[in-house]
């Protein structure tokens, strides 16, 4: 699912370039659940967004879901993000003025072709049912608990039927019980054949993952 070779990513800081990923290579198989751990600034989130096609400014070879990310146009990268990848964030990133269902169906607004848009109501309902929140489809995020919001965010990530789920500290803003529910959900998705890459600081998430990758100064330790 993920093949990275010699990835170098630098950020410009004032007048110098700071390497965040420094010749990183890794491989993740289909259906694997992998936790990425490491200290703050070690490049975990950078790795996640690079794999998800949000960051195209890197050196090296990155092949994800059969696509060579270095050769995709902006439109192709957008389609890749909308169809092949689902993102889950620590702070949920739900649009407050949209209902849970509308948030879940958000990728359909930008989808190319009519298929995904036509299927949006069915897909949205299915994704919410999968995370157990179908009955709250008409609620706005402000009326939901933290755990419920994160489950809506996961439903949004599942909406287009991606093969890869990328989660950045998904339990960071949740209480213990809600966090465990999310971890269980990720495990279930992984067992269903979805590849899950989770950036985390939490031991319980690492324990649930099939493999743990530790990043230190932009390299695998």
């Amino acid at each position: 699912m993920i093949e990275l070779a010699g990835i170098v990513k630098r950020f410009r800081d004032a007048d110098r370039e700071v390497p965040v990923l420094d010749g990183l290579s890794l491989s993740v198989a289909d259906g694997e659940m992998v936790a990425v751990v490491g200290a703050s600034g070690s490049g975990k989130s950078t790795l996640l967004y690079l794999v998800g096609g949000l960051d195209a400014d890197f050196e090296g070879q990155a092949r994800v879901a059969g696509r060579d990310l270095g050769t995709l146009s902006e439109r192709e990268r957008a389609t890749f993000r909308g169809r092949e990848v689902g993102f889950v964030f620590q702070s949920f990133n739900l649009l407050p003025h949209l209902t849970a269902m509308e948030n879940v169906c958000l990728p359909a607004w930008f989808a190319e072709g009519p298929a995904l848009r036509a299927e949006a109501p069915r897909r949205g309902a299915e994704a919410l049912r999968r995370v157990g929140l179908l009955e709250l489809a008409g609620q706005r995020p402000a009326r939901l608990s933290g755990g419920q919001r994160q489950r809506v965010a996961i439903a949004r990530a599942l909406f287009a039927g991606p093969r890869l789920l990328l989660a950045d500290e998904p339990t960071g803003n949740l209480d213990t019980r809600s966090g465990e529910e999310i971890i269980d959900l990720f495990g279930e998705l992984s067992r269903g054949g979805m590849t899950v890459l989770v950036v985390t600081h939490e031991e319980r998430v690492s324990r649930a993952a099939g493999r743990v990758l530790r990043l230190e100064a932009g390299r695998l330790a």
Partner: protein
Amino acid sequence: MRASALLTLAARNLRADGRGALLNGAAVAVGATALCLFLALGMGVGQAVRQLFPSEARLVEVVPSSVSLGPLLGGGQLDDAAVRRLAALPGVTAAWPRMNLRVPLAATRGPEGLALNYPPGFVLQIPAVGVEPGLLAGALAPGAAFADPGPEGAIPVVLSSRLLELYNKTIAPAWNVRRLPTGAALVGLELPVKVGFSIVPLKTEDRVYDARLKLSGLSDRVPVHMLALPLDVVRRLHREYGKADQGYSAVTLQAASAEEVPSVAAAVRRSGFAVDDADRALAERAGAAVGVATLALSFLALLMLAVAGLAIAQSLLASVRARAREIALLQAVGATRGDVRALVLAEAGLLGLGGGLLGSALARLCAAGVDRAALRLLPDFPFRPGSFVHFPPWLWAVGLGVAVLAAVVGAIGPAAAATRIDPARTLA
């Protein structure tokens, strides 16, 4: 991204920040209101001025030059030869000579068949000019002949249609006499006159006899202070009273088009004659004054719209900064930078559309109010227009279009800022 999806999402975003959207929309609406109202007033007053100072764009009035070296160098008297020369000038399609009547003509009674309380003992001295029927084509009543009827017949005459308006709005109220009906209702009336009689001492001719004038039509081509007779009648009266031939008093030329008037006027001057363009100049000066005022006010309104555009720019820029994570999220779920740019521009476009629609509607209401107030408060002066504003349907399109343009142009900067958001760094 589909246009319908784009507009729906933009509308949702605006609704989410309802207060800001309302303020920005109101700013645009004020500008659009001002623009549409000023243009409507300018066009309305312009129409009123044209009504007040009618000037046929294709006509050139030729008069003898005040300084002339005689026919050797061209110019001099406006005789038949001069009329033929003027008619042959490039761009001239017709030439109609006019000759002022130098025999006094006076009315001592009101018109027959009209119950008009004519002041007893009042004598109305009538200045008259002889013209050819061609000049009055279209103004004569159907079947009316504009030719010399002979010494016994009623002389056909044509009045200025503006004279009736002046009479009804100034003379009739001042003298407390009946107002005259306007238009064709007066045609056919006969006025008994005394030919050769003058109210000026020593100007009455040796022979005075009764005659009748018959109104055959109304025309704006007749000077407001004169009455038009057939040219042959004027020639006959001059012969009867032994008036020496002094040539024509003026010649009206008709140019092929309004654009050719300046070149025709220049050719007339080169021929040694003068052009009487006082009426045209007055109309042009009045029209220009209204035009300049309209232009200045419209410029002010455009400035207001530009300020509204800046307000939208500032507001959207702040909004884009505040919504950086939201914009990054849209990119994470499949939006391109183009989609993000289009979304910000669509939000501005909707603000402009709403503000423009509201502004145009407010301008229409204000225009109606101004019109009603003007008609109620202003006195009933001659040539007072029926409306002081002109609000054609295309003015709605102008209000909407300029408002949308101002808003969208204002959003170009914020849209560009939105596309510069790095989703990876923003979401990390």
